[in-house]
């Protein structure tokens, strides 16, 4: 992690290191239903982040004692591939960080998935980070939402997540690894776009009340773009098939 002493100039003339404006997202690309064996899946590229998400379920709960007769349970596994990062993040096996991210991801989805529809069952979400460049937990949630929808799971909304950072007095949207390491604060946030409910919010560092308000507005504004990419990815799967066969 960086410290203030050796921090590079993160913002020069209102532009960031990679030439983006302060409130500009990295290029985002999502492909839905990429894995045949899974019930639902998605592949996401967000800047240099590459994420694969797969959903299995609802299936019989294993181990059985975890089953809840009144509703379904969600299990989530976030993992970084050993080759995903230059730093120690990518070491194999579950660790403190991966366990935490799995937990918060699961809890974000528990708010939107209609668990009562499948009592006694289990929904498995797998998020695998193939390449990381800052903001992988929000990339994971954004991909997993698409995977859940493509599995036909009953959900209230198609959620997205994005991170906001702070460098000096400036707020930056969707920071990459360098910005993440040297920023004064960062805040990943997951939002349900239908009524802009905040489903998950973590904060590392300090935001003032004003900054918090502004950053949530920034997140909601950027969410319009993210939501559109998510929805287009899902529609594209069926439109592609339609184009292929309708002409026959």
């Amino acid at each position, binding site marked *: 992690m960086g410290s203030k002493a050796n921090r590079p100039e993160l913002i020069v003339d209102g532009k960031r290191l990679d030439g983006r404006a302060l409130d500009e997202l990295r290029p985002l690309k999502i492909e839905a239903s990429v894995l045949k064996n899974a019930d639902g899946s998605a592949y996401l590229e967000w800047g240099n982040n590459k994420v694969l998400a797969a959903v299995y*379920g609802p299936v019989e709960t294993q181990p059985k004692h975890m089953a809840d007769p009144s509703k379904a349970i969600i299990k989530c596994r976030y993992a970084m591939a050993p080759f995903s990062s230059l730093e120690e993040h990518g070491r194999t096996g579950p660790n403190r960080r991966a366990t935490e991210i799995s937990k918060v991801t699961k809890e974000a989805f528990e708010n939107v998935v209609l668990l009562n529809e499948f009592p006694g069952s289990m929904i498995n979400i797998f998020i695998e980070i193939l390449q990381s460049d800052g903001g992988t937990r929000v990339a994971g949630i954004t991909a997993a939402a698409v995977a859940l929808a493509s599995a036909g799971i009953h959900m209230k*909304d198609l959620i997205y997540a994005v991170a906001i950072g702070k460098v000096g007095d400036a707020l930056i949207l969707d920071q990459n690894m360098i910005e993440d390491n040297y920023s004064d604060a960062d805040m990943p946030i997951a939002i349900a776009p239908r009524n802009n409910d905040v489903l998950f919010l973590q904060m590392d560092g300090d935001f003032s009340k004003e900054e918090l308000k502004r950053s949530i507005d920034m997140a909601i504004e950027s969410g319009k773009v993210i939501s559109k990419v998510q929805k287009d990815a899902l529609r594209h799967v069926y439109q592609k*098939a339609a184009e292929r066969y309708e002409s026959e």
Partner: protein
Amino acid sequence: MKNIVLPGDNLPEINGRSPYAYTEEGKNYAMVLGVYDAERQSIVPLEGVWNPRLEETVVGIVTSVKNSVYEVDLRFYGRALIIGGKFERFSFKIGDVVEATIKNIEDRKTIILSFPRLLSGGTLITVKPAKIPRVIGKDNTMIKQIAESANSRIVVGKNGLIWIKDGNVALATEAILRIQEEAHVSGLTERIKKMMENNAR
């Protein structure tokens, strides 16, 4: 192309109580990935698990036998049981493929089956449960057409398992898997008809 809806999409109008839509503050929203049928004001899901209903025909594999209670694997998250009695004469072995009708559903996850029938031999294929209605077709037209052209015996389980025996099994399988792939594209009946005619000889 039909109108695809996604979870959270606002719907103009919904007919009665749809299992794939919900209402909040007077507005209707979709719950699943599906196609919105404006005429019927309902959603037809494109993906998803099977939702068991009474009287439905299912196909499954016997996984355990205990005191004339047979547990059947229906590719469903709950359990499915065939309960034998004094007057019912059937006996199955583990691994047998059976066809049965749903008699009762307890707690939405334990299915009690009745009228079990052994399906011996044949091939078992898995299809996404959401596509089964298209495989069957309106008034069984689609499945009848496939069975006639391929000269096969076909039993379609609503749970997504299909049993095929005799005749041109490969052709029947190909047709069914093609329906799964193209279920949402209009003009499907014509394409399948053409395919079966071309291959029937």
